[in-house]
C-alpha cells in the first residue's frame, strides 16, 4: 500500500522560497508567476508575502517556521485588487498587513482609469508618470533589502495604447529598485500567430515572451490538463529562467496541489 505525503513548497535548492542570499545580494532578479483561468495564484502570493516579510510559509512549508523580523521591505503593487483583498487573505497566514510596518501596498486598481490614466487611447505619458511614482515610492523605502510584487501589469497593454516594449522597459526600471521582483500575470490565450502590433493579443503575447526571456524564475500554475478532479486543484511548475541566479540554483520541480474551501493547501510531487 502506498501513502502520499504532503510536500513542502520550495523554489530554491536551499529549501527556501525567497533566499537570504538574494535579498542581501547586490543583483536584481525578476520572477514570473503565471496562471490560467481556474487556478488563481492568490494562495501562493500570500505565502510569498509572508515569506518575504518574516521568512515563514505557514501554509505551504512546514520547515520554514523561524520568524525573522525586519527581513525585507515588501512592496505590493496591484492593478486588479485592493489592499483589503490581500489583508483578508494573509490573515490565514497569520499576518495582519495593516499593522506590519515593512509592508507597503500601492493601489493601482481603485482609481487607475479615473485619476491615473484618464485617456487610455493616449496613455504613454500617463503610464510613464505612474511608473515614476512607483519607482519613487520603492526608492523611498530605507535599505536595499526590497522585494516587490506587481500584479497584472498586462492590463495596461490590454486597456491602453502603450506598446509591450514600453511596459517591459518600465518593469525593468522597477526591477532595478529592488532585489527580487515578482511579476504576476495571467497567460490566458496567448496567440503566437498574432501579427498586428496594435492588436492587444500581439502586445500581450510579445510582452509575455520577452518577459520570460529576461526572467530568472518561472512559476506556472494551471489546472490539470486531464480535466477536473475533486481532490486536485491544479499543477504548479517551478522552472528556472534564462538569466540564472548567481548565488543559488532554482529547484526545478512539478507539484500538484489541492486547495480546500477553508484555504488549506496540500502539495504533492508529480
Amino acid at each position, binding site marked *: 500500500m502506498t501513502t502520499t505525503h504532503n510536500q513542502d513548497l520550495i523554489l530554491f535548492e536551499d529549501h527556501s522560497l525567497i533566499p537570504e542570499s538574494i535579498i542581501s545580494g547586490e543583483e536584481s532578479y525578476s520572477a514570473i508567476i503565471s496562471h490560467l*483561468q481556474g487556478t488563481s495564484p492568490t494562495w501562493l502570493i500570500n505565502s510569498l508575502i509572508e515569506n518575504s516579510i518574516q521568512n515563514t510559509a505557514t501554509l505551504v512549508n512546514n520547515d520554514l517556521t523561524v520568524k525573522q523580523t525586519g527581513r525585507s521591505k515588501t512592496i505590493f503593487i496591484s492593478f486588479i485588487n485592493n489592499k483589503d483583498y490581500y489583508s483578508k487573505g494573509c490573515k490565514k497566514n497569520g499576518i495582519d498587513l495593516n499593522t506590519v510596518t515593512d509592508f507597503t501596498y500601492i493601489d493601482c486598481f481603485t482609481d487607475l482609469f479615473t485619476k491615473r490614466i484618464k485617456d487610455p487611447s493616449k496613455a504613454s505619458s500617463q503610464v510613464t508618470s505612474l511608473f515614476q511614482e512607483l519607482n519613487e515610492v520603492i526608492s523611498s523605502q530605507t535599505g536595499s533589502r526590497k522585494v516587490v510584487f506587481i500584479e497584472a501589469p498586462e492590463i495596461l497593454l490590454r486597456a491602453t495604447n502603450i506598446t509591450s516594449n514600453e511596459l517591459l522597459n518600465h518593469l525593468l526600471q522597477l526591477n532595478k529598485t529592488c532585489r527580487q521582483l515578482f511579476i504576476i500575470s495571467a497567460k490566458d490565450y496567448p496567440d503566437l500567430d498574432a501579427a498586428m502590433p496594435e492588436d492587444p493579443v500581439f502586445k500581450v503575447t510579445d510582452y509575455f515572451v520577452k518577459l520570460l526571456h529576461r526572467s530568472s524564475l518561472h512559476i506556472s500554475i494551471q489546472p490539470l490538463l486531464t480535466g477536473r478532479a475533486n481532490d486536485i486543484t491544479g499543477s504548479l511548475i517551478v522552472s528556472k529562467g534564462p538569466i540564472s541566479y548567481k548565488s543559488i540554483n532554482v529547484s526545478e520541480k512539478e507539484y500538484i496541489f489541492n486547495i480546500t474551501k477553508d484555504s488549506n493547501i496540500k502539495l504533492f510531487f508529480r
Partner: protein
Amino acid sequence: MSFRKRSEVIGGGPTPQRGAPVSPIPGRGPVVPRGPISSLNRQIPARDAIRSPQSKSKDDLEAIMSNPAVRPSLITSQPTISTGASDLDKILLHQGLPLGHSLLLEESSTTDFSSVVLRAFVSQGVMHNRITKDKLHSHVIVAGVPSQWANDLPGLYKGSSKEQKKAKIAENESKVSVSNLSNRVASGRNDLKIAWRYGLNQKASGEEFGENSSYENYNNQFDITQKLTPGPSSQDISFVRISPNFGDIISQIEGIIKLQLKQDPSKTIRLVIPSLLNPTIYSPIFSAPTFIIPFIHTLRAQLRKYENSLSLIASICLELYPRDSSLTSTLEGLFDSVIHLQPFNQEMSQLIEKAYKNEPAKIQQGLVNIIKLPVLSEKGLMMIHDGEYAFKNGRKKFEIEEWGIPVEDVGKDEEQQTTKNIDF
C-alpha cells in the same frame, strides 16, 4: 412491546437540534457545518457573521444584514442577494450573488436566455421594494438599454392552474362559516390519530423555523408569461445611457448609488448591463479595448468601493466575442464569477425532444458551464464545471439541474415482439 420511530433517540427527552451543535472544546463556538444542509442550520452562520470582528465596518454590515433582501452567504457569511433564479443562486454556492461582486453571463448561439436571468434579477430587486410599505430596500440601475427593456419584466409565479384552483378552494375554506369550522376540527383529529407515528406534526412545527420563515422575502419565483404589475417606477429603477466617454457613465452610475445610499444606507443596488457590446445597442467604438476594458475595470473598482451595497450582472454573446478572444478572456479576469449558457444545437435538441416525447416538462434547452464562482475562484479553488448542469427555461422558472444524457427509448417494439415469442 411498544412502537418507536426509527429516528427517535432512545432515552427520551427532546432530540438535540442538529442546527446548533455543541462544541466539544470549551471556549470555542459551535462547529458550523458547510454545504447545503437543513434550513434550520443556516441561521447560525448568519448571526455569527453579523458579530464577526473581521468585518470592515461593523455598523455598515449590520445595517445591510437588516435588509430583508439580504442573507448571509452559505460559504463565507458575506451579505448576499438573490439573482431572482433560485437554481442559479444554488449553483453560485453562496445562495445568491455576494454583494460587492459581479457575474458575467456568457451565451453561445443566437438565443437570448441570458436576458431571462437578467430580467428576473431586475424583477427581484423591484419585488423587494414591495415587502414593506413606505420603505425601499433595493434599487436597480440598468445600463446601455432603453427604458422599454424593463417593460417585459416577469411577474410573480402564482402556481399552475391546478394550484390556483386549490388556492381558491383553500381561500373559501378559510372563511369563517359553520360548515368549515366543523370540517376543520374533524380533519385535525384524524391527522393526530394517523400521523403521529410518522412525525408529521413535528415537521409542520419545524418549518416554522426553517429557511422560509427566516428569509421569506429573500427570493421570489417569476413567471415569464406574466408581466410585473404594477410596473417598476423611477424609485425602483434607473437607466443609464452609454456615452463614448466611460468616465461619464461611471460618474452617472456613482451619482445614482450615492443618492440611493444617502436615502437609505442599507439599500442594495443591482447594476445590470444586458447584451454587453451587442452591435444593435453599442456602436463599434465601444468595442475598442481602450473603452470597454477601462470601463469594466472601473466598475470592478466601484464594486469594491461599495462592497456592502452594489452587485453587477452583465451578459455577453459569445458568437460575437468568443471565449478565446482577448476581450472576453480579459473580461473573464475582471468579473468575479462567470457562467456560460450553451444552448443545445439542433441535433441535440431533437434527440432530447425524442427521448422525452412523453414528458415535455423534462426537455432541457442547453448546458450551464461554470467558469468562475464568486470568492471561491479568487481563493484559488478550481471551480470550472463544464457540462455538468443543464438549464430549461420554463414558465415556472429558469431551472438549472444536473445534466445527464437522455436515454432514447427504442426498445418498445422489440419488447412487444419478444412477448409474442414467449407466448408461443
